[in-house]
């Protein structure tokens, strides 16, 4: 993965697959660390699955027995001196939290990249789910919550309407 945004797109799809109806994606840049959190209210993972979830040979996919999403995120974090933590529970069903920390001054720290493209892609793929995106950084926070957009649009207009997606993408880009 050449940019963190691609990991975000990939790993947040796990939340969609876990049946979450609300997914929070947060990138926080503070004190030389970039912390990515993906927090969902999905079905969670059993302790057995959780124990092996960063093993590339653990996956829910059925096309072949390899799942590279979380292993790639773990690698991206660890190659900067950071780490990956996952909390998840089925009983009680508290959903899943994935947290990856990156040292921003490390040579191998991948750029954040096109986060707007990733958020728009997630919404296009699952317009019925509510995504909240927070990019908290010293030069100004960027926050978008589809629940707020949905409240303006009303029930008739889905979030994957092309004009709405374009508005969302424009809204995520900081002022030039």
């Amino acid at each position, binding site marked *: 993965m050449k940019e963190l945004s691609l990991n975000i797109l990939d790993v947040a799809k796990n939340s969609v697959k876990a049946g979450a109806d609300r997914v929070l994606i947060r990138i926080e840049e503070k004190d030389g660390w970039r912390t990515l959190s993906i927090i969902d209210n999905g079905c969670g993972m059993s302790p057995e699955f959780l124990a092996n979830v960063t093993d590339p040979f653990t996956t829910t996919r059925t096309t072949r027995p390899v799942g590279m999403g979380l292993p790639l995120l773990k690698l991206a974090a660890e190659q900067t001196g950071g780490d990956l933590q996952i909390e998840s529970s089925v009983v009680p069903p508290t959903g899943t939290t994935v947290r990856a920390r990156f040292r921003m001054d490390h040579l191998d720290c991948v750029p954040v990249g096109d986060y707007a*493209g990733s958020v728009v892609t997630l919404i296009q793929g699952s317009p019925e789910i509510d995504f909240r995106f927070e990019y908290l950084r010293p030069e100004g926070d960027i926050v978008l919550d589809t629940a707020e957009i949905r409240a*303006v649009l009303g029930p008739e207009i889905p979030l994957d309407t092309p004009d*709405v997606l374009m508005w969302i993408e424009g809204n995520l880009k900081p002022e030039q």
Partner: protein
Amino acid sequence: MKTLAELQAIRDRMKDSVTMRSGSGSIRAVVGMATCGIAAGARPVLAALVEEVSALGLGEKVTVTQTGCIGLCRYEPIVEVYEADKEKVTYVKMTAEKARRVAKEHLQGGKVVTEYTIGAVEK
């Protein structure tokens, strides 16, 4: 940065056309968006398809959706086109530019872009 007023304007504009919309879409263009597809560059391919389908006014006829791993990871990014009573067309090693051409020639024009299909690439 977009304003809330612009979003409200979209809502007011869309309200009338919304019954026509919600794709009865006879054509489905499906983009593989698992780890393999994403790493190979599926995100800009999907974005280009969505954009071009909208720009060409094909919204009623064509639905663009995402799927997981198609099982042909070395050929990603992959776009599959499904149309009733026709054989599925599998486009492989796609780029945003190729996706725009597929939108124009195939989704709009009905003519398969043979050189991008898996059959042509496998040779």
